[in-house]
């Protein structure tokens, strides 16, 4: 076991070391030094993660749950750094390190001419470290550390081009919105600490069933189920990090960051932290149907309504961003339906194909000289064959084309919701089914607009279009492979086998996957079964509709836009979330701030307290400074006065 401990430590620390070297000594080691040192660090983690995965999942090594370092012990509560490595963790480790490695390699090409090259590599390695700390945590404190650390790196990277005002706006927005989520998350952790008196997962999970019927009074006279409160508070954190309505507003704007980041952080890994967290906390969530229902409803709203927004976007990255939102909604729906395994399974397949889509979009953006508007693209197929094919694979996986990775995970979620009996399941089923059509529609709208049809770019750009260098295409191909096959390979063990036994806990009455699993007969059978459902045809219809509307009859969308201008406006304004936030929260806080500033700050604090004390201090200092005059007899006098005062106070009072 001890050598395993060293391996886990190495997995976590190798990217941190790479990050520190690239960040602190970037000037000395140069650009290639920076990418070598970080890539070696992350590659080490990747290889070791694969070994761990083999050990835990394939060879069935026992679950590792040990404390590495005790930071402090306060009133019996231990603040520790420790690792819990089971099948869920091992899977996340492989996904995180593999996608991160691909993104590292890709970055060499994408950021080739950027002056912040070393800084960028330092950040993404730091991110890898933070994300690993998050998924490997065996206690809430470390979870929170990882949670905040990935948030910090995300903030730094969205604002990576810090001279661009939109990037600064976007990273501030991401930061503020995540603050809201983290506030809930922190309250959730506080509630856990308060009632369980421990931050250790194992302790909390073991004690949780005893607490099922416990209530707490937040508002006097109102009894709330403790588990529901904890579950919802923690989920608010997940809503921020995994961009669920209404805390989703930061994710589309986060596309201001460089594309590799969008792939790594805002598609494949960090935004799935919320999904991972809820799956990890399944022993708590299982105890509260209220919390599960909330999760289900929020997830289905996100899945459906965020997908709709993808249709009206013209920025290639924003289309992918909205599709990420919608897919995160799918994962959350799965969690709400107690199909944690399906959510995590979709998390994994999504990580591969969405990273692929982002990196392919990035490849297009490189070729177009950092032009991101799809209206200026078209007909790129013949210039960029590798990007074209990999993008096609990614899109097919995303829409759930039978056989591709996304098909298995998405169909499993739809089936699971269908079987769920929890409140809100009907609405959720409707959302995820309609969502399939929408997903296919906007995905292929983007695909056709970019690669087919007329070449709408200007002459100068067209003469320079060429396929991206190998550092870009190799990661594309490396991600395309799992996007095709990973679903078929892992659907059996992960959803219907004992892959997650011990890591994810589901009550028998919630076990929708078990129900589906009774009819399961291999991945081929699953495809056949899927072909009898409606979802596959909706996906094909969506893709077909996109082809018809944007390739065949491009006049129809224009007409729609004119005839249904209200609908278009609502979608174009993203349902007004941003305007509402801008006016109500931002404007309101500014006005509140203004009022507090005018009265509280200027008059009371500045006028009375600060300037008042400052004046007081100046006056006092003026008086006291006379004592500190430099004259010896003044000093001696002060001592005598002090002595006399002490005598008066202490000796005279005895008499």
């Amino acid at each position, binding site marked *: 076991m001890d050598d395993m401990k060293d391996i886990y430590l190495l997995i976590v620390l190798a990217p941190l070391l790479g990050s520190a070297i690239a960040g602190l000594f970037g000037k000395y080691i140069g650009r290639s030094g920076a990418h070598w040192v970080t890539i070696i660090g992350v590659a080490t983690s990747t290889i070791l993660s694969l070994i761990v995965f083999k050990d835990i999942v394939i060879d069935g090594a026992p679950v590792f749950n040990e404390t590495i370092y005790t930071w402090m012990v306060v009133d019996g509560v231990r603040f520790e750094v420790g690792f819990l490595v089971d099948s869920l963790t091992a899977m996340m480790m492989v996904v995180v390190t593999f996608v991160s490695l691909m993104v590292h390699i890709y970055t060499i090409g994408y950021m080739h001419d950027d002056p912040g090259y070393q800084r960028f590599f330092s950040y993404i390695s730091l991110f890898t470290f933070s994300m690993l700390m998050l998924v490997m945590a065996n206690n809430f404190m470390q979870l929170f550390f990882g949670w905040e650390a990935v948030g910090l790196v995300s903030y730094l990277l969205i604002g990576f081009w810090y001279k661009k005002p939109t990037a600064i706006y976007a990273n501030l927005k991401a930061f503020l919105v995540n603050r809201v989520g983290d506030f809930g998350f922190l309250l959730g952790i506080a509630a856990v600490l308060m009632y369980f008196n421990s931050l250790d997962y194992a302790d909390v999970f073991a004690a949780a069933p005893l607490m099922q019927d416990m209530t707490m009074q937040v508002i006097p006279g109102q009894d709330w189920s403790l588990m529901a409160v904890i579950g919802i508070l923690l989920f608010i954190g997940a809503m921020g990090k995994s961009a669920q309505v209404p805390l989703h507003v930061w994710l589309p704007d986060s596309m201001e960051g460089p594309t590799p980041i969008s792939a790594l952080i805002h598609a494949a890994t960090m935004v799935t932290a919320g999904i991972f967290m809820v799956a990890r906390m399944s022993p708590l969530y299982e105890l509260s149907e209220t919390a599960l229902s909330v999760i289900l409803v929020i997830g289905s709203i996100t899945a459906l309504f965020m997908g709709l927004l993808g249709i009206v976007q013209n920025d290639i990255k924003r289309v992918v961003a909205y599709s990420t939102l919608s897919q995160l909604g799918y994962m959350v729906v799965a969690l709400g339906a107690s199909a944690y395994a399906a959510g995590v399974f979709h998390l994994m397949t999504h990580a591969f194909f969405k990273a692929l889509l982002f990196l392919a979009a990035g490849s297009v953006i490189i070729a177009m000289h950092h032009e991101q508007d799809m209206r200026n693209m078209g007909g790129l197929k013949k210039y960029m064959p590798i990007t074209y094919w990999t993008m096609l694979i990614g899109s097919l996986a995303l829409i759930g084309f039978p056989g591709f990775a996304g098909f298995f995970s998405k169909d499993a979620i739809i089936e699971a919701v269908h079987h769920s009996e929890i409140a809100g399941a009907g609405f959720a089923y409707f959302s995820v089914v309609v969502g399939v059509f929408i997903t296919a529609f906007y995905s292929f709208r983007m695909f056709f607009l970019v690669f087919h049809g007329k070449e709408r770019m200007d002459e100068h750009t067209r003469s320079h279009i060429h396929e991206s260098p190998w550092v870009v295409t190799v990661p594309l191909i490396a991600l395309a492979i799992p996007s095709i096959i990973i679903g078929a390979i892992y659907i059996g063990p992960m959803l219907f086998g004992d892959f997650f036994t011990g890591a994810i806990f589901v009550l028998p009455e919630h076990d929708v996957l078990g129900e589906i699993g009774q009819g399961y007969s291999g991945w081929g059978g699953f495809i056949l079964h899927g072909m009898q459902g409606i979802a596959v045809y909706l996906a094909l219809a969506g893709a077909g509709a996109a082809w018809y509307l944007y390739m065949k009859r491009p006049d129809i969308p224009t007409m729609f836009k004119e005839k249904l201008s209200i609908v278009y406006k609502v979608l174009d304004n993203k349902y007004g979330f941003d305007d509402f936030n801008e006016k109500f929260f931002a404007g309101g806080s500014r006005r509140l701030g203004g009022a507090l500033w005018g009265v509280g700050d200027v008059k009371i604090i500045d006028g009375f307290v600060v300037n008042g004390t400052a004046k007081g*201090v100046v006056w*006092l*200092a003026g008086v*006291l400074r006379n*004592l*500190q005059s*430099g004259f*010896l007899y*003044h*000093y*001696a006098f*002060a*001592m005598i*006065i*002090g*002595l006399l005062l*002490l*005598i008066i*106070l*202490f*000796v005279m009072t*005895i*008499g």
Partner: protein
Amino acid sequence: MPFAIPNYNVAIPEMFVLGMACLVLIVDLFLTERSRTVTYLLSQATMVGAAVLTLTTYSQEVVLAFSGTFVRDAMGDVLKAFIYLSAFIVFLYAKPYLQARKLFKGEFYVLGLFGVLGMMVLVSAHSLLTVYLGLELLALSLYAMVALQRDSIFASESAMKYFILGALASGMLLYGMSMLYGATGSLDLGEISREVATTKMELVMVFGLVFIVVGLAFKLGAVPFHMWMPDVYQGAPTAVTLYIASAPKIAAFAMVIRLLNDGLYGLHMHWQDMLVILAILSMAVGNIFAIAQFNLKRMLAYSTIAHMGYLLLGILTGSGDGYAAAMFYTLSYALMSLGGFGMIILLSRAGFEADRLDDFKGLNERSPWYAFMMLILMFSMAGVPPFLGFWAKVSVLRELIHVDMTWLAIVAVVFSIIGAFYYLRIVKLMYFDKAEDNSEIKQDLDLHVALSANSLGILVLGIMPGPLMALCASAIGVM
């Protein structure tokens, strides 16, 4: 009356330091200017040797010797070890500074060694007589050291002030001691302790106690007996300031414990209130005045005054845990103070004192590493986690709360927030302002290494404060 041979064994480190100090004094006479390094090396060897002697005989046992005037116990040994360490670092940091100013003479080291001897006697004192003996040996060395730079009128002036005020304070202390002697008929602290517990002569006792507390407050630099500190810190050569600001504070802590706890614990309820007043005044004056300073040495003097306030908070609890917290605070303070003045020495060069706050402007551009080291020191002094200073403050405040003086803990926190301002201002100057002076930092390798180790040590101890805390607790005997 039986004639017993005193138990010399317990005082071997003291005798060793005395012997070596005399040796250095004589050897130095025969050295040429160029071979002065021998003096330096001998002094350092003395510190190492003393440390070896003290640590090899370390035990929890309490041994009295020399007719009960001298005590060897765990607290004394630990404090002595840290005094050697401080003096070692002082000698190391001071060398390049002294060399650049033609002050690299034997006197600095001889006086330094005698000062260390004074501190050792003070730490091990178990009689009013030995307390006074150690105190004066230390103080006289310090007076002379401050005046070392004879041609500087600032140094001479501050030495003069220090001497006269010091004499006044000594007088008060002696007067208090004579009152105690009159009331108890003994100079022995153990004897006094027993007398105090049963005495009827409370008035005389408290009268004497006031004078003793004044003497202690002067030594620590607690308000209103602090006036000498800013002037002396600023006027003395930085190497000497470094010395005054570190080891003697450790000795002063020991002196407070010996007199107030070992001797006068029976009057705890009286001296507790006195220390409360001194502590609040020190935190207030130290932190507020420091804001108005533009000279770093002067600022650190006020910072020291504030730190002494926090130190007193630990002592005034009168509990073993409180003493341990105060001891932890003292040792932390000594390390931080060494680092702070060490940074001034690092940035100084012949004919230039880097003791204005402006000299730290833009340090990050000149040397990111030392800007980071200074950042550690400033954060630690301000009490920001996870640095050592944070734990020092936390442990003192915790002990205050344990003895139900939460209000005082809140006052202390408020003042430490005010104090954070001037520490963080330095960080701001280093990182956000443009450098006025872009010359390269050229110093000997040993200074670089020691100063980095000093600062990183504060970071490491901040992350793992456990062992040092445990050491303090076991030295005080509250495990």
